[in-house]
C-alpha cells in the first residue's frame, strides 16, 4: 500500500470513531481507505465530498451507508442494508452482494451498482443518477422516481415504476406487474447503446438480455375529473 492508502479496523470502535477515522485519514492525505470488519453496522462513510477518494468496506455494511455523499467512490465487499447511498449528490457506489430496501433512495446523481438483488423500493424518489441492479429487484422499485435511470438485469417484482414522474427503468428479466401509470415504451437504438455502456464495466452483456423499457404515462401529472378511476387505482 502507498502512503495514500489507509486502513481502519472497525472492530471495537464506535460508528462515530470509524467515521472520524475516515475523515482524519482524508485530512492526512489518504485517497484509498480500507475499512475492516464493518460487520453490518450502520451509517458508515456518510457526507463525504472528496472526489477521487475510494472507501472500501471489506465486509457487509448496514443501513444508510454512503448517504449524502458528493464525489467519493465507495465499494462494499458484502451485503448492504437499507438505503445505501441515500440522497447521494454524485459519486459511485459498488456493492458486491445483496442490498436491503430503499437502495439509492432520492439520489440526485452518480451511480449505484448492486451486484446481487435489491429489496423493496429501490430507487424510490430518485432525482437523477443511475441505479444498476445485477440481480432481481423487489417490490415497487422506482416508486415515485423523478429523474435518472434504473437498470435491472434480473426480474422485477410487483409494482415497478409506481407513480413515477419521470426517468426510465429498464428490466432485463420478467416484470411481475407494473405500478400505477408506469407504461412500456419501445426500446430504441439509443437505449441499446446506453445499456451497453453502463453494463460493460460490470461484465454484463447487455445484448444477451431482452430489456423492457418503462416510463411514466404522465397521466398522474394533473388531476382529471374525467379519469377518476385512474386516481382511485393509484391511491
Amino acid at each position: 500500500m502507498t502512503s495514500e492508502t489507509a486502513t481502519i479496523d472497525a472492530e471495537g470502535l464506535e460508528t462515530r470513531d470509524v467515521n472520524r477515522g475516515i475523515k482524519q485519514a482524508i485530512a492526512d492525505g489518504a485517497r484509498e481507505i480500507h475499512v475492516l470488519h464493518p460487520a453490518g453496522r450502520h451509517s458508515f462513510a456518510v457526507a463525504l465530498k472528496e472526489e477521487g477518494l475510494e472507501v472500501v468496506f471489506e465486509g457487509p455494511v448496514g443501513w444508510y451507508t454512503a448517504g449524502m455523499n458528493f464525489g467519493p467512490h465507495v465499494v462494499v465487499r458484502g451485503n448492504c442494508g437499507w438505503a445505501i447511498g441515500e440522497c447521494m449528490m454524485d459519486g459511485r457506489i459498488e456493492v458486491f452482494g445483496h442490498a436491503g430496501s430503499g437502495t439509492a433512495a432520492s439520489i440526485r446523481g452518480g451511480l449505484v451498482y448492486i451486484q446481487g438483488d435489491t429489496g423493496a423500493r429501490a430507487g424510490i424518489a430518485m432525482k437523477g443518477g443511475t441505479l444498476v441492479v445485477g440481480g432481481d429487484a423487489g417490490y415497487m422499485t422506482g416508486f415515485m422516481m423523478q429523474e435518472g435511470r434504473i437498470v435491472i438485469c434480473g426480474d422485477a417484482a410487483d409494482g415497478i415504476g409506481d407513480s413515477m414522474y419521470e426517468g426510465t427503468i429498464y428490466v432485463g428479466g420478467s416484470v411481475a406487474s407494473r405500478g400505477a401509470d408506469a407504461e412500456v415504451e419501445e426500446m430504441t437504438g439509443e437505449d441499446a447503446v446506453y445499456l451497453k455502456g453502463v453494463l460493460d464495466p460490470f461484465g454484463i452483456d447487455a445484448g444477451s438480455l431482452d430489456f423492457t423499457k418503462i416510463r411514466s404515462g404522465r397521466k398522474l401529472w394533473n388531476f382529471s375529473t374525467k379519469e377518476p378511476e385512474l386516481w382511485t387505482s393509484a391511491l
Partner: protein
Amino acid sequence: MHVCGIVGVFYKGSATGPVGQVMTDMCDQLFRRGPDSAGVALYGPRLDDGFVVRVDLDRPDLDVAEGAVLAAADEVTTVKDAARTARSLRLVVTDDAEGKLADVIEERVPDARVFSVGRSMEIVKDLGMACDINQRYDLGSFRGSHGIGHTRMATESRVDIAHSHPFWARPFPDISVVHNGQITNYHKLRRRLEQKGHRFATENDSEVIAVYIADKLAAGETLDAALRASIDDLDGTFAYLISTVDGFGLARDQFATKPLLYAEDDEMVVLASEEISIRALFPDPALVPRELQAKEVRWWLR
C-alpha cells in the same frame, strides 16, 4: 410494534445448539430497535411424557406465590419438577389438563401469568436488555433445536413483561410468535378467534398472529398454507416469525415494510431484522443473508 427487532435460529436435522446464548446475544445486537424489553422462546429436548410450563410471578412474595402455583397445578395435573429462577417458575407436569392448565393457575393465583406451555418450548421475557435477562434467568446454558427472540419498542400496548414478546398461542402447546409491525385489523381478527373459543392473555396486537396460525394448524392446515393465508388475512405491517415444536416459519407483508433477513447453510438457519445481528455471531462470509421479499413466506421443519 413499529421498530422492534426479531431474531431466530434453527439447527437442522437432529442437531442442537446453545439457543439461549445465541438468541440473547443476537437480541442485544438489536437493542436500539427495542430498548423496552426482550424475550425468547427456546425449544429444548422434547418431553414425550410431559409438558414444561413457564410461569411469571409478578409479586414480591415469591415463595408464597410458588406454593400457590404448585397447589393450583396439582389440582389438574401432576407436577414432576419445579424450579424458580428470579421470578420465572419452571414446572414439569405430566399433562396440560387438555389445555386448561394455564387458565387454572391464573384463576387460582393472583398475578401469576403463564407465559408458555409445551413439550419443548419455554418462554422467558422481561424488561431491559437481553444480556441482563440472560443472566437473570440463567439462559446461557440452555441448549435446544431452535429458538426465537425479540427486542421491543412498545407502541401499541403497555410496557410491561406480559406485553413483551414472544407470545404463546394459548392454549396450543409449543407455538409462539415474535413480530415487528402493526396489525391494524387486530380487533376484528381477535373477535373472530374469540368467537371460536380462543382466549387472549394480553391487549397486544401481535398475540393475534400466534393464535391465528395455531388455529389453522389445529384445523389441519400445513404451516406453509397458514403462512400464505396470513399474508391476505393480516392487515397492516408485519415481519413475523412463528415457531412450533418442529421448527419455524416467517412471513412479510405485501408492502415489505419491516425488515427481515435469513441466512442458511447445511447446518443451520439464522434470521434477524438486521444483518448486524447475524454477523456478530456468524461472521463467515460464506453465510450470505437475504432479505425476505414482499409477501414472501419461508419455513423450516425437522
